[in-house]
C-alpha cells in the first residue's frame, strides 16, 4: 500500500535524540545564571498518556522493548475505503504523523507514572455523576449551537496548552521566551501564550478563573516549579473537567541543551480520589512556528452545524 512505514523508520533514526548520557552536558544559562529554556521544543512522543492495562505496574521498557514498541506505534495504518476511519485526510500527507516530527525518547510505558498502574485514578462519585450528566447532555445537544461544541473545536483550549501541557497527535511544538521575571510558552496549537510570572507577585483573586489557570513560577535550584490554580471548571480533560479548586504543579528541568524533563502533578480531590503525576521529555527542535490563528479559519464548526441542520430537515 505504501512505502511510508519504511521511510518513517529511517526518519526515526535521524530525528530521535536518545536521552542516555545527556545529563553530563553543560546547559545554556541566561544572564542571571538560570537555565535558559528559550527556543523551540517538541512535545511529540509515542508514549501513551495512560499505560495499557496489559502492562500492569511495569513502569519502564528496556531500550529493546521500547524500540519494538515505538516501531509499532509509528507504523502507519492505512484506512479502508468506505469506513468511518477513511472519512478524513491523511495525516502523513500534511507532515503531521508523529514519525515525521522531532521527538524525545521516553522509556516510560506511560506518561502517567503515579498511580503505579500508570492510569488515571478513579473519579469521585460526584465527578462521575457529573461526567455522566454531561455526556448525556452532549449526546442530545452537541449540535444545537456553536457554544455547545467542545472547547477544541471552538479554538479555545487544547491539551497542548494545559496545564498540564500534554501532547496530542500532531502540532506538538512550542516556543519558549524567557526573561528574568517571566517565562512564556507559546504552543503551536491555539493562539494564546501561556505567561508565567517568576517574580513572586501576589496571586490573583481566587474568584478569577482563567482558561489556562493562573500560574506562578519559582526556582528550586535549576528546576523551575510552576504552580497553577484558578481553573475555570471547564478545562482539564474535558470530561471530567478539573474543578475550580484543582492545583497543578509542574517541574521543568533542562537536562541538556536538547531536552527538558517535564513533570507534573494534578491535585483535584473534588474530581479524582487521589492525585496523579506524569512526565515526558521535550526535545529541542527548529522554528519558526506558523501562527495558528484558529478562529479566522474555523470553517469546520459552521460545516458541522450546517450538517446537523440538514439532518433535521430530513427527519421531521
Amino acid at each position: 500500500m505504501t512505502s511510508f512505514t519504511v521511510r518513517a523508520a529511517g526518519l526515526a533514526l535521524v530525528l530521535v535524540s536518545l536521552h542516555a548520557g545527556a545529563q553530563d552536558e553543560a546547559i545554556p544559562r541566561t544572564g542571571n545564571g538560570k537555565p535558559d529554556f528559550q527556543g523551540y521544543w517538541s512535545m511529540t512522543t509515542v508514549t501513551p498518556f495512560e499505560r495499557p492495562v496489559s502492562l500492569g505496574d511495569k513502569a519502564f521498557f528496556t531500550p529493546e522493548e521500547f524500540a519494538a514498541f515505538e516501531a509499532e506505534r509509528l507504523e502507519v495504518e492505512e484506512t479502508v475505503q468506505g469506513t468511518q476511519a477513511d472519512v478524513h485526510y491523511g495525516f502523513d500527507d500534511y507532515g503531521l504523523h508523529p514519525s515525521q516530527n522531532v521527538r524525545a525518547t521516553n522509556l516510560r510505558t506511560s506518561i502517567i507514572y503515579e498511580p503505579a498502574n500508570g492510569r488515571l485514578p478513579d473519579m469521585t462519585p460526584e465527578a462521575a455523576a457529573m461526567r455522566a450528566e454531561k455526556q448525556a447532555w452532549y449526546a442530545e445537544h452537541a449540535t444545537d449551537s456553536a457554544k455547545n461544541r467542545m472547547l477544541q473545536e471552538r479554538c479555545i483550549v487544547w491539551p497542548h496548552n494545559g496545564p498540564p501541557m500534554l501532547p496530542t497527535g500532531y502540532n506538538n511544538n512550542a516556543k519558549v521566551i524567557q526573561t528574568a521575571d517571566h517565562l512564556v510558552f507559546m504552543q503551536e496549537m491555539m493562539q494564546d501564550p501561556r505567561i508565567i510570572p517568576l517574580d513572586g507577585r501576589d496571586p490573583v483573586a481566587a474568584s478569577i478563573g482563567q482558561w489556562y489557570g493562573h500560574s506562578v513560577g519559582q526556582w528550586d535550584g535549576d528546576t523551575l516549579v510552576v504552580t497553577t490554580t484558578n481553573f475555570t471548571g471547564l478545562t482539564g480533560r474535558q470530561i471530567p473537567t478539573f474543578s475550580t479548586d484543582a492545583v497543578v504543579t509542574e517541574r521543568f528541568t533542562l537536562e541538556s541543551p536538547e531536552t527538558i524533563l517535564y513533570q507534573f502533578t494534578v491535585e483535584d480531590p473534588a474530581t479524582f480520589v487521589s492525585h496523579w503525576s506524569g512526565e515526558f521529555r521535550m526535545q529541542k527542535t527548529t522554528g519558526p512556528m506558523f501562527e495558528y490563528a484558529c478562529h479566522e479559519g474555523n470553517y469546520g464548526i459552521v460545516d458541522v452545524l450546517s450538517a446537523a441542520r440538514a439532518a433535521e430537515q430530513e427527519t421531521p
Partner: protein
Amino acid sequence: MHSRLLIATLVLGLLPAASQAHHAFASSFDVNLPLELHGTVTRVELINPHSWIHIDVVNDEGVTESWRIEGGSPNALFRNGITKNSIPVGSELIITGYGARDGTLRAVGANITFADGRPVFFGGTKAPEE
C-alpha cells in the same frame, strides 16, 4: 485511503476520536457519499485549523461547479518549505474522498494527487528534513 493516527486517541482518552482532527469529520462528511473529483485549482487556503483547496469541477452535464476540499493543518508543511504556491492555481487534481452531509459542494480529501499521479504535499514521498 490514508494514514490513520493511532496515538491521538490514546492521548486524549475520553474525547471522541474524530475530535483529533479539530472537529468531527464524521459529523460533517458522509461515509455513504464517496466521490472522486477531477478539477482545476482556483484557490488554496493553507490555514488553521484545516487547509482548504478550492477547485472547479465540470460535472456530467457540462456545468462547472466550485468545490472546496478540506485537508489538514498546514503547520508542518510550512516548516518544510511547502506553501500554497506548491499547488499553483490552474493545477489539475484528482481527489477521492467523501461529500458533505448538508449537500453543499465540499468534500474531505482522503487522497489528493495531481492529474499525473504525483502526490500533493508529502504524500508518502517527501520526508521532512528537520
